[in-house]
């Protein structure tokens, strides 16, 4: 209970700090939304009128406190540009980014897990060296290049998969998954390498442990040794990295969602930053912060599931 209390306190602190910092930073950027709303033919008087109308003429602290008060009651305000409710817009966009996140991480794990295990089991073999070589080659390709390459190959040349054309899950499951394969692959092709390397390295250490030797001596087949005895204790770093990658995923989502015309949070955030739509940026950052903290808390909990020793130590500590 005490741990949960501490976590909740930290959570509130992180959200407050990030939201305040974001508010400050976006307000320090040159130009404001009034100029975007006004356009190229607005006069200074027009700009003043727009600023007044949007409440931008108030002190930054007053604006932040007002936003915070409303946010605490679940009201994230309206977009300065579209006049749509921020929360409503985010809720509509959220499933797209979540789905991209899940699909890309699943793809990355589908590549990383078998290749990491094989790499550890046959370390320094031809296969290991080949996989590592391919891994480093794909790692060095930026996600936007990977996205364009996949479009060129699978969409234009082979015509197997759509370059754009997002279909909601609720409309057609097959078409929806099809529209996520290339975006997911563009992210996964970069992320699988780190996961594979981390797993391989930890598993090589694990395979040198006495209990593995014992398992082998008992005559267990290699797949049982690897999957039942070595995989779980080798997954701690993998899960930590996975948790961090999910947070970093948003940076890639900005690019990938733009290239594949996916209506997700990443694209919404970048468009809002360019337009200096402070309210929308605040809302998006708040959501991302909450998501990031939750994911890392889940990762913490997963440690206890994977390793009973942590559970016990945690119990003692508690």
């Amino acid at each position, binding site marked *: 209970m005490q741990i949960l209390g501490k976590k909740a306190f930290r959570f509130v602190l992180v959200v407050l700090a990030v939201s305040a910092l974001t508010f400050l930073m976006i307000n320090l950027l040159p130009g404001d939304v009034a100029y975007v709303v006004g356009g190229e*033919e607005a006069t200074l008087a027009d700009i003043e009128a727009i600023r007044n109308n949007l409440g931008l003429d108030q002190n930054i602290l007053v604006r932040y406190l007002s936003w915070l008060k409303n946010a605490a009651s679940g009201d994230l305000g309206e977009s300065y540009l579209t006049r749509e409710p921020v929360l409503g817009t985010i809720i509509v966009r959220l499933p797209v980014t979540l789905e991209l996140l899940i699909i890309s991480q699943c793809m990355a794990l589908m590549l990383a897990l078998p290749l990491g295990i094989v790499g550890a089991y046959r370390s320094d073999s031809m296969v290991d060296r080949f996989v590592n070589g391919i891994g480093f080659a794909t790692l060095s390709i930026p996600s936007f290049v990977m996205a364009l390459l996949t479009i060129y190959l699978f969409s234009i040349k082979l015509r197997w998969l759509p370059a754009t054309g997002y279909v909601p899950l609720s409309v057609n499951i097959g078409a929806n998954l099809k529209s996520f394969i290339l975006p997911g692959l563009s992210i996964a092709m970069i992320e699988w390498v780190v996961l594979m390397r981390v797993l391989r390295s930890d598993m090589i250490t694990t395979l040198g442990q006495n209990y593995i030797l014992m398992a082998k001596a008992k005559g267990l087949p290699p797949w049982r040794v690897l999957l039942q005895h070595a995989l779980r204790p080798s997954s701690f770093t993998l899960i930590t990295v996975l948790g961090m990658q999910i947070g970093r995923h948003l940076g890639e989502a900005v690019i990938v969602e733009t290239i594949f015309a996916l209506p997700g949070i990443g694209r919404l955030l970048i468009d809002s930053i360019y337009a200096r739509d402070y309210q929308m940026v605040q809302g998006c950052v708040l959501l991302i912060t909450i998501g990031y903290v939750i994911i890392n808390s889940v990762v913490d909990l997963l440690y206890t599931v994977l390793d009973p020793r942590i559970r016990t130590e945690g119990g003692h500590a508690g």
Partner: protein
Amino acid sequence: MKKLLSFRFRGRERKNQISVAIMPLLIVIGWLCISNTFAAEPKTGGTLTFGTENDFAGFEVLKSSSRLAINGSIAANTIMEPLFRMDTDENLIPVLGLSLEQSDDGKTWTVNLRKNVKFHDGTAFNADAVVNHWDRLLNQENKFRGRAAMGPIVSVKKVDETTIQYNLKHPWLPFKRVICGTRGLINLIPSSKSVDAGNQNRAPIGTGPFKLEEWKSGDAFTVVKNPEYWGKGVPFLDKIVFKPMTDSQTRYASLQSGQADIIWMDRGNLINKAKTDSSLKVYASEHNGAEIFILNTSVPPLDNVNVRRALAHAHNQERQVKMVYKDSIPVVHHPFGNQCECNEVGYREYNPDEARKLLAGYNGTVELEVLHSSSKRGRDIGEITQQLFKDVGVTANPKGFDFGPVIKKVISGKYQISTWRISSRPDQGPALFLTLHSKSRANFSRYKNPELDKLLVSQRMETDPKRRNEILCQIAQLINDDVPILYRGGMRSHVITSNKVEGLFSMKDGIVRLESVWLDK
């Protein structure tokens, strides 16, 4: 056929013989092709996917008109309609208006409206709808930012249920052009009910051939056929889905791979690529306005006219158009596009020697900050300009910013040179008045010239088309002489379609009309 044509290269005599021999065959083939084209009946049904540059800003004129780019205007024109349109030869096309008559004193225009037309929400289209719309635009309290473009229109009054009158402060030659403009939302008549309910911005209601089905922000703007449309036989399509695809490469790839049927495009390399692709069709429309550099004439060294003239000679518009736009836009000498014909307007051609000569008479070094957008195109413009200016001894420091900061710096006068735009308008007269008259609050170049002021007023009052044309040319001449702006290219819009898209007959000022479009499935 290829073999037959190859004979042409084996000598003049042989060629003539072959030409005579295949001529009847070619005539028959040609006739068959032509008759087949004319025989092609439009097919009804189907969904057209339109790849747009970005999502739309909204469709309520007081909120979004200044931010509704071409793509948004194309979508708006499927749902809402103006009273009249103009064809490329400036002939009036009746839409919701049937006739337009000018009073003897030239200050009143009477419009007879189409009867038995209904908005998509079931309310009747009538004089009240038109008057309500214009009242909102003209009401000073609403602070409509496009007010200046409406010139001397004072009021719009209802005469009877199907007749309205535009009242002008003075006779105004561009009136017809202005009320036929389909860019933005000024002339598109919305349902008063929808506007009063505050729904028009996100759920536009009009009388058009399509009605809004759903708008998923950032994803798709879907319109469906209006079964009660007043126009006979149109539209042919069942549905149009406008999909925002910010990245131009993706938009193009979507067209190639069949996810989009038509895309809007402003990247020269992709336009040129599409022209060589037999599975695609490229449509272009030129309009007035210009891509420019705006010069702040109130700060040194640009307050010196000879420095500005030197920069005009150092600047190479042809090279900018070629390298930045890959020749996809025209080189221009004035901002009027096809609107008026001027023979010679004193355009300062690229001439580095002349630039050096002019700069020699200036005491001091010329160092300038050149603002541009932070996009790749913006950076290219900055780099080319830096190089061109360096060649004549001017130090240019290009600085890239997002859209908002550039506007802020220009509006507040804290700049020397910046990329800017003279927007495309039905008539450039009011826009130029706004941009260059010394008393205009939107004169961001801070350029003051009593002679130009006089001409800008004259063009507004002149009722003789020929004389007005001359005045506009004199304005262009004066601009080129004093150089408050430098041209970076004219305005030309492009859409690219797949081969199955047919019936795209009308594209004026970049606005594609989609009611005549059909899919050859």
